[in-house]
Each structure stands twice: as C-alpha cells, then as structure tokens.
C-alpha cells in the first residue's frame, strides 16, 4: 500500500539557517532516505522551495485565475513529501516517526487512492 507523507512546517523556523545547517539537514534526510531504501519501501520524495515561490492556478471559476503565492496562507506550510510503499498504516506511522520533519513540523499521512 502506498502512503504519502505531506511534511508541514513553519518556514520562519529556518529563516536564519546557515549553509552548515542546510548541509546537516541534507545529511539527516540522506540517512532517512537510505533507511527507507534499505527497507525497500522508498518510492519518491521532493523538497520544495519556500511557499513564497508558489504560484496557484485554477480554472474552476470559468476562467484562468492565477495567484502569486500559496493556496492557503497558514502558519505551517507544505515543505516536501515522501511516498512510501508499506504494509499498512502502522508501518507508515513507524516510518513517519523517523522522518526528520516530525521533529520540527507535522506529517500528514495519506493513503493512495490510485487503483492498481
């Protein structure tokens, strides 16, 4: 079963992060990705640039609407995601607990709805 971890955090927490901080972040995420791969549960991941870089687009209202910025202006913003392939929600939660984002933000775990 595929699960997506949506990683939310407060971008202000990392506003003062130095080059060395970012490198250390990459290292611990690197270890996490390696652990997922070792367990053969890794599918995909990406880290996103800050929400101020977002462009939000919709045709829902009948014409194209483009908004500069994220869909919702909330304190915690989507900062990245992981897709894992594990047995069940218990296993997904065990892995989410190990994700560095759980230490500074929150992780929404969503099961895949895609058939097959």
């Amino acid at each position, binding site marked *: 079963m595929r699960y997506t971890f949506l990683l939310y955090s407060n971008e202000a*927490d*990392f506003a*003062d*992060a130095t080059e*060395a*901080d970012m490198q*250390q*972040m990459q*290292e*611990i995420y690197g*270890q*996490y990705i390696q*652990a997922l791969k*070792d*367990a053969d549960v890794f599918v995909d991941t990406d880290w996103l640039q800050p929400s101020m870089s977002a462009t939000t687009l919709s045709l829902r209202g009948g014409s194209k609407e483009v908004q500069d910025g994220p869909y919702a202006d909330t304190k915690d913003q989507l900062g990245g995601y992981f897709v894992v392939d*594990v*047995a*069940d929600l*218990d*296993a997904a*939660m*065990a*892995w989410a*607990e*190990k994700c*560095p984002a759980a*230490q*500074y933000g929150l992780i929404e775990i969503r099961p895949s709805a895609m058939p097959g």
Partner: protein
Amino acid sequence: MIVHSDIDRVARDSYSRLIAILAARTGDIALAEDALSDAFQRAIEMWPDQGVPNSPEAWLLTVARNRLKDHYKSAAVSRRTEVENIEEKLVTLDIAEAQLSQPSFPDERLKLMFVCAHPAIGDNVRTPLMLQTVLGLPVEQIARLFLVPSPTLAKRLTRAKQKIKSSVVPFEIPDDEVTLATRLDDVLEAIYGAFAAGIEAEEEQQLTLVSESAYLIRLLIALLPQEPEVLGLAAIIHLSAARLEARYDEAGALVPLGQQNVDMWDKHLVAEGRALLEQAGRHQRIGRFQLEALIQSVHCDRLDTDSVNWSLLLSLYEALSSIRPTTGSLVAQAAVISEAVSPQKGLEFLHCLKIQGLEQFQPYQATRGALLLQSGEPVLAAEAFDKAISLTTNKAARLYLQRQRNSL
C-alpha cells in the same frame, strides 16, 4: 573505547566545573556559557605569549566574572529594580573566585545536572541539554547524534535555558530523600537516554554517545558515591558496552544476546560492570537500574558457565515489573518465561498484557513470532514476523528478523 584523552578530560572538567559555578550563581545557563566562552577565547589569545597562569581555572573564572559584571552593569542601567539582586550575584561570584582553589570548594556540577533534568524541562531536551552544558558539546554535533536539524535543536535548547532562567529553576540538590530519589531518577534517565540512543546509532555516532554517557555516569559517581542506582546505571553501561562488538554479524544483522559469541565480549568491561554492581549491592537499596544491570549480569554468566540461569532471570524480571513495568521489560519477560517455563506460558503472558499500542510495538511482534514458532505455530509465527518486519526501521534488526522469517 570509553576513555577520553587526558588533555580532553582536563579541559572538559574545567569547562563543566566553571559553567556550573557561573550558572548556579546567576541562574542563567546561556549567560554563563557566553561569559565562559569569552574567557576561553581570551585564554587562547593570551596564554601563548604570557604563559599559562598558575591556576588556569581561577584565571578563567576571573575573566568570565568580569564579563558577567559588564553584562549586568549594562542590563542594570535599563532595569534599575534589579540592581540589588545583581549586586548579590556578583558578590557570590567574587567569593567563588576567592575560594576556588580550596579543596573544600563544592563541585556545582551535580546541581547543574539536576537543573538539566528538571521535570519542568521537556523530555526530549533533557539529554541534549546535559550534553551541551555539562560536556560542552556543540549544538551541531548533538543534532547529528540525535538526527535532528541543528536549528530545531538550537531552538529547543534556547527555550529550555530561558525557562530555567525565567521560572527560576533552583540550582540545588533536594534535601529530602524522596524528592532526591525522584529527581535523581530523571538525571539517570537523561544519561541512559544518551546511551540508549548510542546503542541504536550508526558506528561513529554510537562511539560518541556511548563514551559521553560513560563520562557523565562516572562524573555522577564521583559526585554522588553513595547512591546505588547511579552505580546500577554505570553497571548497565559497562555490561552493554562490553557486548557491542558481538551485537552484529558480518552481514550487519543483529545478533540477539542468547546467540552472541561470548569470545567477542569485552571481559574487562564485564568485570568492571560487575564490580560496580557489587558496590551498589552493599547499600542494600535495590532499584530499577540495579535490577536491569543484574539481568545483564546473569546473561554475562555465559562467559563462565556456558549456560543461563533462566529461573533467576525470571525472578529479576518479576521484581522489575513490580517496581517499574515498561512495555519493553514486560515483552522481554515473556521471552524469559518461554525459556524458564515453556513457550506456551510465554505466549499466555504476552496475550494477557493490556497495553495501548502493543500491536504496533515492534519487539512485541518479534517476540510473539519467536514464541509462536517455538510453540509449533509456523503460520501464525510468519504473520507475526511479517508484522514485526513492517514495523522495523532499524536495518540490523530487520536483517535478523527477515532471516528468521525466511527460515520458516
């Protein structure tokens, strides 16, 4: 593996002694750290030309105290009401400076450790706070050890220190026995936290965490030589560290205690651990750390007798469950019942446990699998092993479980 170089030890000893003196007298750990790091900086600049002073610690304390004076003077200008309070702090620092070289001068590090593990401080920051303030480890290094982003950990540490300062967490050793025992348990738990994280960690991080926790427990023994539980935790650290080499096979899979090659155990560390345990026993006050150390020591009997006294182990687990039941110790007790009595009895015990989240607890599923297998239930055992494997995020443990599963 546990010993630091002499120079490192002396520098660290001075650092932690001085931080404790400054923090205990100002109630402000962050300020003490800033002042002392300034003093060390000055020493680096001046000592090569002027030579090392007769009493380096007194020199460092004087410079740090002057820094604090400057700080308080500028702070007092904006907040007049606190002037008296500040004068008092400076006087106690002056006294400390004058008396530092006397042998009767108290070691304040114990107070610092009690503050770091104070119940008002969050569980997840007590161990890092102790590593930072008592051992002087940089935030970046602690962050790497616990796999937490540096800015996140830095924030937690700053918040903890602010709380200590603003809520005036007292720098004192509780004088009634009951409070002392509870608070000491928190200090031991924080040190145990560093060690336990080390056991699970990768090679380099493992070595650091194990040796740092060993340093902290030795310091604690020196400061509180009459506390059997301190000796008990020291024994646990020695007895577990003795078996670190034997914990993994060539493929990197975990080797459970009962299957470890005793020739790979460090006999010197086992002997040291047992001596600590014996020393603890003389006080005739048993506690959870001594019980856990005794359990380890019984396992280590394989060094001499090539067998394990399972009924003795069972009574130790029963005693542990009666004073400090944890999910981990109860699950381990089931495995011991299986050896001492029968796998069926072990399974019965396991199935009678009413603990929330038990089904998601990896050791529960792994133990259940092993006991089901021994009870001649291979199909159910396979299911339990599959569940255990799916919950395992540690590579060594997973390799071991997969091997068990594949043997079915």
